[in-house]
């Protein structure tokens, strides 16, 4: 993290944790339209492609190649699509649960808030008993607009190189 780290349990940390739990509740409840209200108009939301590489070459995340590379307009388009009667991919919807842990918070010099969290996405559909699991680390930047925090940047660094879910319709 590049910002000034804040204490776990401190006021800002608690505000961010509440924000993240609120976000997870909306996403787990299928309330994507409400989730959009937590997103800044200049958001950059990315899931980079990862490759398996030797240890000396680092983590294998690519800078310019993505599974998802969204802006506010494309996120809004996704939400709108899911509100149609023909978005078969998620109708009937998967059941998704976001487990958010290891929350770390830092203040950036411009007033924005840098947040890292571990995410475990547990997803079932139909009568599946074996869940789809996706684990990763989220690198977020939250910005304050009229007192409320909004998501300005999210990079989801997934652990896998080949993604084993039938689609990426969910929001990380």
């Amino acid at each position: 993290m590049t910002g000034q780290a804040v204490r776990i349990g401190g006021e800002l940390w608690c505000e961010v944790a509440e924000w993240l739990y609120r976000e997870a509740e909306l996403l787990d409840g299928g309330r994507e339209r409400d989730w959009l209200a937590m997103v800044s108009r200049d958001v950059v939301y990315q899931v980079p492609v990862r490759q398996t590489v030797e240890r000396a070459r680092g983590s294998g995340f690519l800078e310019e190649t993505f599974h998802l590379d969204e802006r506010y307009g494309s996120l809004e388009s996704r939400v709108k699509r899911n509100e149609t009667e023909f978005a078969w991919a998620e109708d009937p919807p998967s059941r998704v649960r976001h487990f958010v842990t290891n929350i770390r918070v830092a203040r950036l010099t411009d007033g924005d808030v840098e947040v890292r969290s571990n995410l475990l996405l547990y997803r079932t559909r139909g009568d599946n008993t074996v869940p789809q699991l996706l684990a990763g680390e989220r690198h977020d930047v939250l910005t304050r607009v009229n007192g409320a925090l909004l998501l300005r940047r999210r990079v989801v660094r997934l652990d896998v190189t080949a993604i084993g879910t039938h689609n990426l319709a969910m929001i990380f």
Partner: protein
Amino acid sequence: MTAPLPSSERADRLLAEMRDDLARGALPAAIFGDEEIYRLELERIFARAWVYLGHESEIAARGDYVVRRIGEDPFILVRGEDGVVRAFFDACRHRGVQVCRADSGNTSHFRCPYHGWTYSTTGQLVGAPLWRSAFGNMDKASNGLATPAKLASYRGLVFATLDPNAPPLTDYLGGMAWYVDLLFGLNENGLEVIGPPQRFVIDANWKSPAENFAGDDYHLGTLHRSVWAVGAFPVPFKTNMMGYHIQASPGHSLSFSIAPDENDPGPKFFGFPEDLARTFGTKLISPEQLEVARRSRVMVGTIFPNLSILALPLTEDGAHHPPTAIVTLRTWQPRGVGHIEIWNWFLAWRHATPAQKERTYRAGLGTFSMGGSFEMDDTEPWITVSRTGRSTFARVANFKLNYQMGLPGVGVAKRVPDWKGPGICYWPRFEEGVQRNFYRFYLDFMQANGTYPRTRFDG
């Protein structure tokens, strides 16, 4: 092939019946789920057909490599220190251990982690620890990395075959090459990949997406109905059904959504921006090919067995960005009878501006990838085709699927008598001959009995 082909009486009986079924537009559902059929496909199709490995732009520099699969087997595709592109079976000649442990990179050599046998980027065994004591006098030349029987490249697309009796790649592609040129040859700068591929594993059979991309346009009106609601695709469903279905040569099929005349106000050249389209010409292709491309809104096709090409105008955000051409290449790599690894590459013209490259990439990602508005719906039906295919009912009731659209008397599609390109052409796209062509060639391989299937239509 030296080894005897495995056989299974039940599977071979199913295939024999399928030959008759296909002529009347039926297909046994069991081919999408039968374990024995799948095992035979690996031996009889993936070990014999020309299989796509990658694009030359992925390994532009000497020492660049990527790891790809033929069937389920790993091969290293590498540009050697001599500049030549080769493929090697990713297994050490000593004990069979994987020698390439990264997905891609640049290297001067491949070293086995077990005993240290080391190979050059041209596949030669160059040494091992304490060589003189361990292997002194042993012949290095005959212990290089093993290669596919043949490797060849067409317009930057690199294919390999494990069958030494396979015809040359250009013969195998046959008439399909004319249509590959029609896109890849529009400008002499060529197309290049935008970064390494996305990879997804879904619970479906590899043939479902392969036949879909052979020209299943009819599914857009139902499965992809949502894309019109968000303005992702500019051509209405019914209008988009106007166009050609082409059996380019045995196994390889494709489909074009075509404007009725050149003054049609809709997208031209798959929706490429006008200043790019102005660079398209006849240096590499004929006026007839250029004319088809000019009138094309969509081109989608499958090169048998598992490479598909798609070009069409799309946007990930219809409210803010007009549709622009995206080009995607994908392989449907089998990982068991009920699993596919989807490898997805986006391509852009080398001479496109950075802004054009970013736009086509973002439009592609937002539509034809696993998080995209088009493709996320596609996996849904393919998963349950596979479930139907492995059902007991499919076997005991001999459950057949309907592939009749466009057969004589079924629907409006008619053969185009004066078609300028190679192959068999139908208009409009209410037609499943493109899929039947895929499965006829499939059967030609599955029942080949050692001979190589004919790569030209009879007569």
